[in-house]
């Protein structure tokens, strides 16, 4: 049967070369456009995953200042959880910050000066970064000299090594801000320095190096439950809901159009297949079963769809290479397989549902 179907397909393509090309072209265009839209939505998804970090961020507030430090130590040494790449603790005036430069290259943007070096963070040096709103209260003279004179925190002199944009009046800051912001106050010092100086943190926020699995989230939840006085708590999410919604938003407006385009391609294929129906009718008269006819039609479609899909994938691969950065992102291979299965099922169903009744109707008429 497979051999017959394959030979039929080749002969059929050879006899109706123009229609074969037309069907093939329509399918390549439809698949290519579908894949490109998917790649575009996938790029938005990856951007959202990177910026939202929903599956990696832990945030809580706690009025027991010692609890935060001991929890940090626990999380740091926990073998079940991934490493923490960014850790922020803060009170009303100061932020303690740790940033693992080995795991995340991007550090806090400092328009003047520099971010803490790894050595400064590890050894707990007396260095500080200042938010831009800190400077608004300084005199012209102090603005120029603060980089050499430094600032005092609880009677200890700190060197000021850089600034960062921070223009949020205290009364306008909401809880949501602390949940998302890496720096939360106008003065930022290394995390180790923060703990060494006995400052009293009220908030804890950390970003793990990898998304947490449900087991890890449960484990994390258990650790936190052992601590009293934890108030607002936001655990890492089990999936990037916002990113997934952005992906769906990116494809939904086009899916209907792409499906309609696939349908119009199918109408060409059907028109083309009609030329083969005479042969199928002869097979039916000679005793072929309905399912065998469906099989022959399906093989025709499967071969056509596969050839068109492979060509579309190659075209999209080339297109992705020349597309400007920041527009599309290559899909994981699993997506290509899923899309292939999806379009194959859709095309097979659509063609068979339309074609089989026509073949049988004409056979009945001839009878």
């Amino acid at each position, binding site marked *: 049967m497979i051999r017959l179907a394959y030979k039929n397909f080749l002969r059929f393509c050879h006899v109706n070369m123009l229609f074969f090309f*037309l069907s093939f*072209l*329509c399918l390549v*265009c*439809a698949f*290519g*456009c579908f894949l*490109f*839209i998917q790649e*575009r939505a996938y790029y938005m998804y990856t951007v959202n995953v990177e910026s939202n970090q929903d599956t990696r961020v832990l945030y809580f507030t706690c009025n027991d200042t010692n609890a935060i430090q001991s929890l940090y130590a626990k999380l740091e040494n926990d073998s079940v959880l991934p490493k923490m790449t960014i850790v922020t603790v803060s009170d009303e005036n100061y932020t303690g910050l740790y940033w693992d430069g080995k795991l995340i290259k991007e550090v806090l*943007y400092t*328009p*003047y000066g520099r971010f803490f070096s790894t050595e400064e963070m590890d050894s707990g040096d007396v260095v500080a970064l200042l938010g*831009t709103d800190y*400077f*608004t209260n*300084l005199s*012209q003279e102090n*603005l*120029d000299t603060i*980089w050499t004179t430094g600032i005092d925190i609880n009677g200890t002199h700190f060197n000021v090594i850089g*600034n960062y944009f921070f*223009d949020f009046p205290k009364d306008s800051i909401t809880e949501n801000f602390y949940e998302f912001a890496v720096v939360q106050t106008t003065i930022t010092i290394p995390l180790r320095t923060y703990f060494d100086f006995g400052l009293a943190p009220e908030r804890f926020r950390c970003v793990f190096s990898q998304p947490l699995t449900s087991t890890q989230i449960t484990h994390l939840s258990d650790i936190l439950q052992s601590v009293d006085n934890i108030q607002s708590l936001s655990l890492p999410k089990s999936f990037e809901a916002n990113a997934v919604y952005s992906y769906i938003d990116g494809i939904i407006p*086009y899916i209907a*159009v*792409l499906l*309609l*385009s696939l*349908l*119009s*391609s199918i*109408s*060409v294929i059907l*028109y083309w297949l009609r030329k083969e129906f*005479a042969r199928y009718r002869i097979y039916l008269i000679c005793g072929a079963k309905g399912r065998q006819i469906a099989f022959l039609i399906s093989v025709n479609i499967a071969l056509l769809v596969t050839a068109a899909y492979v060509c579309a994938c190659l075209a999209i691969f080339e*297109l992705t290479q020349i*597309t*400007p*950065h*920041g*527009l599309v992102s290559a899909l994981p291979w699993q997506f290509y397989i899923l899309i292939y299965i999806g379009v194959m099922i859709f095309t097979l169903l659509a063609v068979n549902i339309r074609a089989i009744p026509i073949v049988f109707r004409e056979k009945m008429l001839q009878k």
Partner: protein
Amino acid sequence: MASVLIAIKLLWKRKLANFVLVIQILLSIIMLAQVFVAIEDYRDNLRAVNELPVNNTVVLSIFDYYDTEYVTQQVLSSPQVESVGRVYMGDIVFCNNVSCNLAAYNEGIISRYSPELQSGSWLSDYSSFSGNAIPAVVSSDMKLKVGDVTDVSLSDGQTRKITVIGILKEPTQYLYPWGSASPEYFTASSVISQKPVIIVRYTDFGETSVFETPMDVPITTSIFIFLKSDAADTNMDTFRTEWNKYGEITPMQSLVSTFNTNTNTMIGGTTIMFVVFLLLAATGVLSNNVIQSLRNRRQFTVYYLLGMDWKKGAAVEVCRVGILVIFTMALSLIAGKLGLLMLEWMTPARAFLFYGLVFLYIVVMFTAVGAGFMIKLMREDLSGLLKDLQQGE
């Protein structure tokens, strides 16, 4: 009339396919609008970008906690600096019943920057202000002529008299640093404006509060530092070390290259999306027209046997395409009204040009395949058509 009715009947028979086709073309028109706006935006800025003083120039976006005059003096004290340019920008002013920007350039800008003029002369040709009216260069959309003297109503309630000495070339483009960003993202389009404008020499304007920044709104002021020619070889890090505490430093060349990169990304991205939807639309048009034409062949053969002239068949085909074109054009007009075609980003003249392009696009899309089949239909051998009608017998 009969031809039109037959055409409508033919369209109705394949209503779903035709609906899909029109929607696909409409989507590609939406993408076309984005390409059009991106290209027009690029053209709007291009001339001004090329006119910007680029050589030996750096932009310093001053932190809002620093006093601009103080920083300017500090920068000027450097031996490598030739001059410092600054644009004083006020609130919207009214002149000749037009709301417009007021830009006061200092000497540094006037001597290094001269935008292309439609008529008249640039501010540098008038060394100083003498008389009652301040020499001003205005944009052509102010509807003023060289030599006109008119009043400008300032935001503080005062008025100033200006005399027009030059008119900017159309479309309006001029240096107006309204925005800033970190060096990686700072682009030339942030220092250019296309709004109606009155440009004056700052010293001619005299003391006024209209250029003062409101205390409650932190606005980053950018100054242009023109370096001496022998400082061109100096490493940028030297300047960064010296002035970075006052603000963010970006070489002017970087603003232009960021602008070019952003523009290429925007135009490239929108063009690719347009091509994707154009392909979808072309697929729909091709498949629909091929099937429609093959069906028409059969139908028209029957009509021919019943005594209808071939030309009548061609007329029906023309009507069918014409109805599709009119229907799609009407839908694109509705889409424009619904805000899907970015018409708010276009001037009336550009919107008119865009719809002209859309009409051409629709006509080409619908007739490209249809015309070929119509010619074939006119030259077809009747026996071949009859054979096709009888499915080979």
